């Protein structure tokens, strides 16, 4: 049986199911209990699991992330709620120096089965410190896995896999999609890491898009289809591990690719994926791999400016048309 539920509800269900399944799983973070987070994603969990397993903390991000690392090293499986992705900067030592490296530094003796769930996404009029998409920061660090759900279905399946993983997993939810509904089975399912999803098959161009940008790419593909351009849309689902083979195979078929991601373009995810395509599908390319990312400016508050910083379906379609027609790419 499949019903339509919101992304928020999907995350809530995934966590509740895993907490029922495994008593060592617990939630920790700011305003996770009665408040259920500012986005209400965790509403009701404290009623079922009690304050011992749904733990409200002070506003001390390094403190509770560090404690989650220690708890994970000693037999429990914490799910840490980091209220905004922008707060990653506060917890970098605990996440990148401690969590990511324990297994390696101990020669495999210690492990950190911990999930850090946080969010990304601009255009919520929240300005520069509550709108960033910082997944590239953590995807850069060996020892961390990074998941990027693009719908309610994806969010539930990836969250359940993350909770069962024996490593630190950072999972980024698009905060603008919490109320978006999608068909989600009532039966249990998990989505494996490192297995990209081909949302739409196409012949002329490959659109590789992550998280919030998957729907942008899908809309662009729909518009292009009306013009006779057949676009293939691929959602990698996880950045670490990254399903390189599916992407490379697609581009070898279509000969053209655009990579779309809401992180800043400079030194980020789009550059990494474009580089892999160039390395592995060079002789199949008919056009330089194109990249669309968040504009390389701090996210501005004014709606008139903020909307300029994020890739849109129109921008993707425009880039795709030029690539398919073989028009000379913009020099700048």
């Amino acid at each position, binding site marked *: 049986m499949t019903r339509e539920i919101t992304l928020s509800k999907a995350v809530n269900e995934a966590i509740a199911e895993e907490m029922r399944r495994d008593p060592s799983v617990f939630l920790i973070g700011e305003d996770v209990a009665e408040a259920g987070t500012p986005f209400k994603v965790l509403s009701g969990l404290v009623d079922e699991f009690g304050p011992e397993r749904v733990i409200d903390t002070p506003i001390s991000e390094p403190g509770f992330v560090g404690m989650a690392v220690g708890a994970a090293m000693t037999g429990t499986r914490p799910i840490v709620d980091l209220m905004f992705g922008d707060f990653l900067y506060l917890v970098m030592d*605990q996440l990148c120096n401690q969590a990511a490296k324990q297994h390696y530094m101990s020669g495999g003796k210690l492990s950190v089965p911990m999930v850090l769930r946080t969010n990304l996404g601009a255009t919520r009029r929240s300005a520069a410190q509550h709108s960033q998409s910082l997944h590239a920061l953590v995807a850069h660090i060996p*020892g961390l896995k990074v998941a990027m759900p693009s719908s309610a279905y994806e969010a539930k399946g990836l969250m359940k896999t993350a909770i069962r*993983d024996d490593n630190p997993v950072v999972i980024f939810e698009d905060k603008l999609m919490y109320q978006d509904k999608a068909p989600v089975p009532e039966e249990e399912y998990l989505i494996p890491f490192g297995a990209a999803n081909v949302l739409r098959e196409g012949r002329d161009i490959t659109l590789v898009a992550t998280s919030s940008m998957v729907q942008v790419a899908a809309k662009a593909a729909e518009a292009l289809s009306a013009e006779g351009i057949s676009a293939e849309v691929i959602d990698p689902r996880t950045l670490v591990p990254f399903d390189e083979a599916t992407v490379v195979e697609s581009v070898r078929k279509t000969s053209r690719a655009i990579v779309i991601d809401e992180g800043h373009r400079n030194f980020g995810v789009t550059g990494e994926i474009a580089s892999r395509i160039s390395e592995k599908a060079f002789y199949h390319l008919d056009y330089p791999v194109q990249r669309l990312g968040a504009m390389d400016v701090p996210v501005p508050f004014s709606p008139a400016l903020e909307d300029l910083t994020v890739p849109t379906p129109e921008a993707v379609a425009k880039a795709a048309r030029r690539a398919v027609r073989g028009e000379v790419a913009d020099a700048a």
Partner: protein
Amino acid sequence: MAAQAAKKTGGSRSGKEGGAAKAAKANTEDYLRMYRQMVKIRAFEDQANQLYLSAKMPGLTHMYSGQEAVAVGICEALTDEDRITSTHRGHGHCVAKGAEFRQMFCELLGREEGYCRGKGGSMHIADQAHGNLGANAIVGGSMGIATGAALSAKLQGSDFVTVCFFGDGATAQGLWYEVMNMAALWKLPVIYACENNGYSEYTRTDEIAAGSLTARAEAFGIEAHRVDGQEVLAVNELAQRLVERARHGEGPFFVELDTYRYHGHHVGDINRDYYRSKDEEAEWKERRDPIVNFGKWLEAEGILSADDLVAIGDEIRAEAEAAVAYALNASYPEAGEVDMHVFAGVDHALPYIDGYAKGAGA
């Protein structure tokens, strides 16, 4: 030298101890073990220093010499199931928690038989089997881990206690105040053990620390103690009481242990005149050495003779030398191991992150 009573510096729960407190270890066997453990740490460090000076050890290391009574006095109050987190100056904690010379020297020399298969080195030795969750090369970096281990013990309903070792320099890290707050709120079984050796790397701590350290813990309602960290029996007596109380839900606690680091910040910090005097170093070494003084006390009590003390030193030195000789000839890890142990459940990380190898369950 009798076990010196720890100075009590207040705390809201200070009146509740007593009945639950176990007496300090008061038999010959315990004394001998504590003495031997301190001698082991000193012997280990002497060998490690020689390895550095003779250019046989890669990198640098931080000597624990002078602080032995802290690690031994506290770890002797713990079981193998109790946990510790350690620091960059961590060899003493590792030995005191039960580690073996051979695997430790192999780790210092980057050999496959090391505790961490040579991947951690001096600053990351972990010995999970004895509850050592690892040294940490970030000053104060393990305060969250230790407090989280205590949270985990509470969630699991176990009575394990975690001791978080750190130096006076680490008290300047904000993380400590965040986790003390939560540990106090949730009454976690953690003991924050601050080894105050007087120096934050190359700077006198009293030049950069305002107020008193015990007062900082007390601000969170945490019972704080200050003890002479050169007196192993005083440290052990206090640790026995606090560990027992923490086991029964009366934690957390803070202990400041006054001690001294004989060497520089690390083995390469040879010329120290600009931050401390040779007279000061001589004063601590000649008058307050924890091993010499405890040895004298054992002799005075008729537990050991002067010859016994020399024999113990010789025996342990020979053991350390043999372990070094073994480690110097031990194998390095195979090159193929470089991308192993990045992820649990994944044999080799490089093909895995590119999506060409599946991990366990994912």
